[in-house]
C-alpha cells in the first residue's frame, strides 16, 4: 500500500491525531497493519480485506469474511477472504464452520487449504473431553451450592459452546448465570455475553432487553462498557429499521470505545452507520447539533473521511458531490453484514431529503439546473419529483412545458370553506341516516315486544 512510504513521518501524527488509545495487537503483528488500521478502510476504493479483517476479532471476523466471500463477485477477493477465514478458524475450535469454509474453498487454494480431518477429529475429541470435565465440575459446584463457582461454571460452559458455534446453548448457559450473579459486575458481564451471542445469532430483540438490563445497574458501568452498550443498542435499532433511534445511539458512543468491542463492531462502523442513519432521518437542526458539531463523534468520522465529507456536502447543499460519495461507498457497504440490506432504503431516503431540501427555499426552480445539480436527466428528475409531490413531501406543481417547478401554497381560506361545506354535508347525511336507522330499530323492537306479549 502507498502508505508505507510515509510510514515513519505520518505514523506518529496519525496515532495522536485520531485520539484512539493504544494500538491493539493485530494478528499478523506488523507495523504495516498498524498503520493500515489508522487509514480509511471503508472508502470508495476496493476493500482491503486484510485491513478490514484486522479491525475485528473472534467469531464476527470469521462471519464477516464468509459474508464477504459470499457476496463479492471478484474471485480474487473471494479466495483471499476464504483463506483468511480458514486461517482464523484453524486457531479456534469451531469445526462446523471449518467444514463449511472448506466446502466453499472447494480446493481452489491448493492442498494446504483442504479438509484437515485429523485436526477436526482432534478438536472434536478435545471438545468432548472438556465438556465432560466442565459438566462434572459444574455438578460438583452445584452440590456444594457455592454461588460464585456455579456462576463461573455456567460461564465457562457458555464460552465453550460459543467457541464451538453452538450459539443457542451458549445463550442459554449465559442466561443461567443470572440466578447466581451477586455483584453488579457479574450482571454486566452476563449481559455483555448475552448481547454478544444474540448479535451473532441475529436475535436483536434479546439485544435490546439485555442492553436495558445492563443500563439499569449504573454502579459498575465504566465508560468503555457504556460505549459498548450503546453500540449494541444502535445495532439493534438498525436491524429494526428504526434509523433515527439507531443514529442517536451511535452518535452517543464516546471515544472510549476504541477497539475494545472488536468482537462486534469497529469504530469505523460506528461512524458509517451513525453518519448514514443520521443523514437519512435527522432534520437540519438535529444534523448540525448532533453530528457536525459533535466533538466526540468527530473522532469517529475522522476514520471514514468520505462519510464526513458527504455529511458536510449535504449540509452545505453540494448535492452532486454528496451523491457521488454515496455512490462510491455503496459497493463496499453492500459487503457489510449489518448494513447491506438497509443500504437501498437509506440511500433512497437521503436522496429524497436532498431533493426536498433543494426545492424548499425557492418559489420557482428551473428543473434543468436541478437535474444538473443532481447529475440526472430532466425526465428522471420529473418522475422523482412527481412521486414526492404525490406523497405530499413537496408542496409544488410542475410546469411540464417549460420544465419549471413552482412552489404552491394551498389557499387556507378556500380550503377552510371547502372543508366546512363538506363537513356540513357529511353531518347532514349521517344524522338523517341515523334517524332512519333508529326508526327501523324501534319498529323492529316494537314488533318483537308485541310478539312477546
Amino acid at each position, binding site marked *: 500500500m502507498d502508505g508505507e512510504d510515509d510510514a515513519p513521518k505520518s505514523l506518529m501524527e496519525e496515532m495522536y491525531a485520531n485520539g484512539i488509545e493504544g494500538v491493539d495487537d493485530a494478528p499478523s503483528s506488523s507495523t504495516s497493519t498498524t498503520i493500515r488500521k489508522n487509514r480509511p478502510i471503508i472508502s470508495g476504493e476496493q476493500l482491503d480485506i486484510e485491513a478490514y479483517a484486522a479491525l475485528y476479532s473472534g467469531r464476527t471476523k470469521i462471519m464477516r469474511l464468509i459474508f464477504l466471500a459470499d457476496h463479492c463477485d471478484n474471485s480474487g477477493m473471494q479466495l483471499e477472504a476464504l483463506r483468511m477465514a480458514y486461517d482464523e478458524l484453524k486457531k479456534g475450535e469451531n469445526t462446523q464452520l471449518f467444514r463449511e469454509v472448506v466446502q466453499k474453498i472447494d480446493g481452489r487454494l491448493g492442498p494446504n487449504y483442504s479438509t484437515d480431518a485429523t485436526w477436526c477429529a482432534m478438536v472434536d475429541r478435545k471438545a468432548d473431553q472438556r465438556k465432560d470435565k466442565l459438566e462434572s465440575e459444574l455438578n460438583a459446584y452445584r452440590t456444594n451450592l457455592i454461588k460464585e463457582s456455579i456462576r463461573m461454571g455456567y460461564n465457562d460452559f457458555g464460552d465453550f459452546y460459543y467457541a464451538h458455534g453452538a450459539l443457542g446453548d451458549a445463550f442459554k448457559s449465559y442466561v443461567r448465570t443470572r440466578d447466581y450473579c451477586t455483584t453488579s459486575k457479574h450482571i454486566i458481564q452476563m449481559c455483555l455475553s448475552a448481547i454478544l451471542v444474540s448479535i451473532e445469532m441475529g436475535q436483536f430483540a434479546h439485544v435490546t432487553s439485555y442492553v436495558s438490563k445492563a443500563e439499569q445497574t449504573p454502579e459498575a458501568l465504566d465508560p468503555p462498557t457504556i460505549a459498548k452498550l450503546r453500540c449494541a443498542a444502535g445495532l439493534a435499532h438498525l436491524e429494526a429499521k428504526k434509523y433515527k433511534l439507531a443514529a442517536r445511539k451511535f452518535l452517543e458512543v464516546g471515544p472510549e470505545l476504541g477497539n475494545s468491542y472488536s468482537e462486534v463492531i469497529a469504530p469505523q462502523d460506528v461512524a458509517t452507520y451513525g453518519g448514514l442513519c443520521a443523514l437519512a432521518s435527522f432534520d437540519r437542526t438535529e444534523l448540525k447539533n448532533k453530528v457536525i458539531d459533535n466533538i466526540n463523534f468527530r473522532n469517529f468520522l475522522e476514520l471514514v473521511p468520505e462519510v464526513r465529507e458527504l455529511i458536510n456536502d449535504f449540509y452545505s447543499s453540494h448535492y452532486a458531490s454528496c451523491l457521488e460519495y454515496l455512490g462510491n461507498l455503496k459497493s463496499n457497504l453492500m459487503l457489510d453484514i449489518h448494513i447491506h440490506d438497509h443500504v437501498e432504503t437509506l440511500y433512497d431516503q437521503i436522496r429524497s431529503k436532498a431533493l426536498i431540501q433543494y426545492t424548499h427555499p425557492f418559489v420557482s426552480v428551473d428543473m434543468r439546473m436541478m437535474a444538473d445539480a443532481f447529475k440526472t436527466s430532466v425526465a428522471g428528475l420529473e418522475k422523482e419529483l412527481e412521486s414526492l*409531490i404525490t406523497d405530499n413531501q413537496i408542496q409544488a406543481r410542475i410546469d*411540464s412545458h417549460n420544465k419549471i417547478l413552482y412552489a404552491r401554497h394551498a389557499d387556507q381560506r378556500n380550503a377552510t370553506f371547502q372543508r366546512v361545506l363538506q363537513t*356540513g354535508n357529511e353531518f*347532514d*347525511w349521517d*344524522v338523517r341516516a341515523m334517524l332512519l336507522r333508529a*326508526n327501523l330499530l324501534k*319498529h323492529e323492537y316494537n314488533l318483537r*315486544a308485541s310478539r312477546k306479549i
Partner: protein
Amino acid sequence: MNSVEGLVNQIQGLSTTASDVLSLQNLLKQADDSLHAESTRLLPFLDQLDPSKHSLGYLYFLEACTAGPVTKEQAGSYVLMIARFITSCIAEQIRLAPDKFITVCKRFKDQVLLLEEPLRGVAPMLTAIRKLQSSSEHLTALHPEFLLLCLLSRCYKAGLSILEEDVFEVDQPRDLFLFCYYGGMISIGKKWFRKALELLHNVVTAPMSTVNAIAVEAFKKYILVSLIHHGQSPTNLPKYASSVAQRNLKNLCQPYIELANSYSNGKIADIETYVEANKDKFESDNNLGLVKQAVSSMYKRNIQRLTQTYLTLSLQDIANRVQLNSPKEAEMHVLQMIKDGEIYATINQKDGMVRFLEDPEQYKTCEMIEHIDSSIQRLMTLSKKLNGVDELMSCDPLYLLKAGRERQRFDFDDFDNVPQRFNI
C-alpha cells in the same frame, strides 16, 4: 243482493260528517266478507257511488271488485276507474282504511304492468302517495311501487320529488329496502351519484336480522357507484351496519370486490381484462352498464390526480400517464371533464398543452353566502330534531327499564327497580 243495495244506501247516507264516516267504517268492516262473496256483481253498483264524496265506501267496493283474477280487457277499464278514484278521493276517508287503499293501488300497478303501459300509472300513483302519507317524512308501502313504475317507464324525473324528501318514519322495513334500492337505480339513471350512494348506503347499513336479496343487489351497485363517485370502494362496512351484513355481504358479492381491488391498483388494462373475463356475471346482474361507467371513471380519476402535481402538461404526456391510446383521446377526455366541471383547465391546441387552473371559486359571492346560510339553518333544524328524538327515547319506559337494569350501583337505593309507572 239486498244487503249490497242496503250497503250502498248507507254509504250514500253516512258519508258526510266525520262521526258518520266512523260508524260507516264499522258497518263496512262487518260487511266486508259478504262484499267479497259477491265480487263479480259489484261493478254496476260502483256507478251509483261518487268517489269524491263516498270515498270510503267506494274503496271497499273497489277492493272487493278487483279481488279476483283480472283479464286484459277488464284491466283496461279497471285502470281507468282506479285512476279516477285516486285523483278524486278524499284523503281523510281513505286514511281510515289504509290497508285496503294500499291493496287497491298495488292491484292498479299490477294491471298497469299487465297492459304494459307503466307510464299511465305514474301520475295516479304519485297522487295516491300524497294522499296516503301522514307527513312528508312518512314512507308508505306505495313508495316503492311508484318508483318501480317510474323505473319501468323511464320517467325518472317524476321520481325526483319523492326522492328529495327525507324519510324518517317507516311502516315496513321491506318497503324501505325496496324504496332505497329503486331510488338508487333511478338516481344512477339520472347520474345523481351522490344521491344514489346515499340511498344504497341506507339499504346496506339498515338493521336486518338475516341477509336479504335486496341488500345483496344493493351492495353490488353500492360498490360500483362509490367507485364512480369517490374513486374508491368501501373496504369495510361501517360499524353500525348489522353484524349479519358485515359478515355475509362481502362473500356474496365476490366479483365486485375484486373489481374494486383491481380498480385501486390503477391499471386500466388489468381492470378491462377482468371485466371481459367476468362479463357474464355482471350481465346477469344487469350491472354491465354500471361496470363500464366505473371503468371509464378511472381515466377521470387519473387525470384528476395529474392536476395535483402538474401545472401544464402536454397531451401526449397525459395520454401516456393515463394509458390512453393517443393525444386526441386525451384531448377528448379532458374536454369532457372541463365541460362537466370536474376539472378546471385550458387546452392550448397549438402547443398541444393543457394548463391546469385552480378552482376559481373564491367563496365571496352572495350566492355562496346564501348557500352557507341555508345549510346552517337546515342543519340546525336537523339537530333540533335529533335532540327531540333523543329526549323522546330517554322517556320511553322500555328503554328506562333496560337501562335501569344495567346501570352502575353505587348506593343502596340503586338496587331498587326502576319505577315503570309513576304512581303518586
